[in-house]
């Protein structure tokens, strides 16, 4: 639990505006992901939490420009890597689950085919062997009738089922050390949300994954995460263990965020 797998170090960036000016959006963002731990990055929409995560994989939007800082993965700066080196890390070392799983899967290929493609890419082997692995991965994330489901297209999946398939692809078909989840339960029904979180926690524990959960749902964070990073307006305002953040937050923004989520819970 002591080693640091990934370290974001004074990472700064800006967007090109339509008038060709650089508008800073990330200011000296720094946080660490401890190996084997589950770290939450919380903050409001637009706080820059997803942008940092996309930067880790080098899939940030084209208008985004890196203006300073480093992202160290096992001591290597990811910023300096060329496309080929970056590609060899994607999926194999670092993998990502996205928010809207039905849009994140390709509409014209079956779910099984997409998982099998990723399996072949990461582990080689033939088409039919890869398809078997894809079906196994779907079974592992509790998708009923995985053989039939594998032949279906993303539009035939519910949001929750699609997110399970996405998790199977990112965490099982790929065998990463670091799994980043970008708002994985947003937009799903509340009961489905807790099922998905349970699955994520179970897979992370079992596989010894280092997990980075990007969310604005503090209830989920309190239940599942070890560490918390709070971001606001492109800055990290506070980091600490979940216990410390929830019982003795120092930063006024963190306190406001906590108070707001407790109000919501009290009302519910």
């Amino acid at each position, binding site marked *: 639990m002591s080693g640091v797998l990934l370290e974001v170090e004074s990472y700064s960036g800006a967007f090109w505006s339509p008038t060709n000016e650089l508008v800073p959006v990330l200011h000296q963002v720094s946080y660490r992901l401890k190996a084997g731990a589950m770290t939450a990055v919380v903050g409001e929409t637009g706080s820059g939490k997803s942008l940092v995560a996309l930067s880790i994989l080098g899939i940030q939007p084209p208008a985004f420009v890196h203006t300073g800082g480093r992202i160290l993965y096992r001591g290597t700066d990811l910023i300096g890597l060329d496309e080929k080196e970056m590609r060899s890390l994607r999926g194999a070392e670092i993998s990502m689950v996205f928010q809207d799983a039905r849009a994140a899967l390709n509409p014209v*290929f079956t779910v099984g085919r997409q998982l099998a493609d990723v399996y072949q890419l990461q582990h080689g082997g033939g088409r039919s062997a890869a398809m078997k692995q894809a079906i196994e991965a779907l079974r592992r994330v509790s998708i009923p009738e995985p053989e039939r489901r594998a032949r279906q297209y993303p539009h035939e999946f519910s949001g929750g089922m699609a997110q399970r398939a996405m998790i199977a692809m990112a965490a099982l078909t790929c065998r990463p050390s670091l799994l980043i989840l970008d708002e994985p339960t947003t937009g799903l029904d509340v009961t489905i949300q807790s099922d998905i979180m349970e699955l994520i926690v179970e897979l992370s524990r079992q596989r010894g994954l280092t997990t980075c959960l990007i969310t604005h749902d503090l209830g989920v964070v309190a239940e599942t995460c070890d560490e918390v990073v709070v971001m606001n307006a492109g800055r990290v305002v506070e980091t600490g263990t979940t216990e410390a953040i929830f019982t003795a937050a120092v930063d006024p923004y963190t306190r406001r965020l906590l108070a707001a989520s407790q109000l919501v819970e009290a009302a519910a």
Partner: protein
Amino acid sequence: MQLGRMILRRMLWVFPVAFGVVTLTFFMARVFNGDPTELYVPPEATDALRAQIRARLGLADPIPIQYINYLWDLLRFDLGISFTTGQSVASDLWDRLPATLELGLVGLSLGIAVGIPLGVMAAVYRERWPDFLVRGVTLGGMALPQFWVGLVLISIFFVSLRILPGPVGRLPIGVPLPIKITGFLLIDTLLAGDPALWWQAVRQLALPALTLGFSTASPIARVTRSAMVEAMQSDYIRTAIAMGHGRRVVWFRYSLRNALLPVVTLIGGVAGHIFAGAVLLESIFAWPGLGQYALQSIERSDFAALQGFVIYASLLYVLAFLLVDLLYMFIDPRIRA
């Protein structure tokens, strides 16, 4: 099974649409050219003679009877007699069809084979010089009239460089056609075991096919480009990259398949246009196809021939869009549901 039923249902739709097309053609002909008798008789003919000819042409009957006769004739592929050629219109169309199909197929294949890769390239190198080049050239291809492009190609390759033959049809003047088997010269010459004749046919076909290919490739490249750009910005492409897929897989497997949907629609429309006979193009190259036939029938007020051509062209569009819809079912699984 479900897909099979959908395909069948879509194909059955062709019949009401075709029925609508031929009905419309009939009534439009009656409105715009109420009495073609005048075309057949000399001005000094007597009224009795006119009445006789009207009766022979079936124009003396009331409209509903004429309509039923017309439908009955159509069912037997009887489109009437062309008075310029003296042949039945159906056999005239049938004779000229291979020339149009051969030119159209080669031109369209060229257009697709060039247009789609150019569009992909422009999308991949978006806002860089290959993109600007493709956009510039294709803008030209869409803005310049086809007949003008054809004339320029003739003046370059025939008049100036003298490396390709002049616009005298499917074979050089005085060279007899091979025995008609398929009607496609590129096939019949080979079946006749005459590679020299095949080469002559290829050379005659080169300029009109290039002209057609250029004007077809341009819209295809532009639509491919914009559809590819859209696909490449999608969430599912971001996923594919995040999972470690290489650029080629992302472009040609994951993006292109999605981007092909609008391209297929466009190709359907273009194909309908081409196979209905590119009238001006066929005129310039003296290509003995359906476009020229249609032009001649207009010039000579050959009523039956023109009506036959209109029916053929309309049904061709119906078929082209049937094919597009069927292709859609294979490319886009969301339509099957």
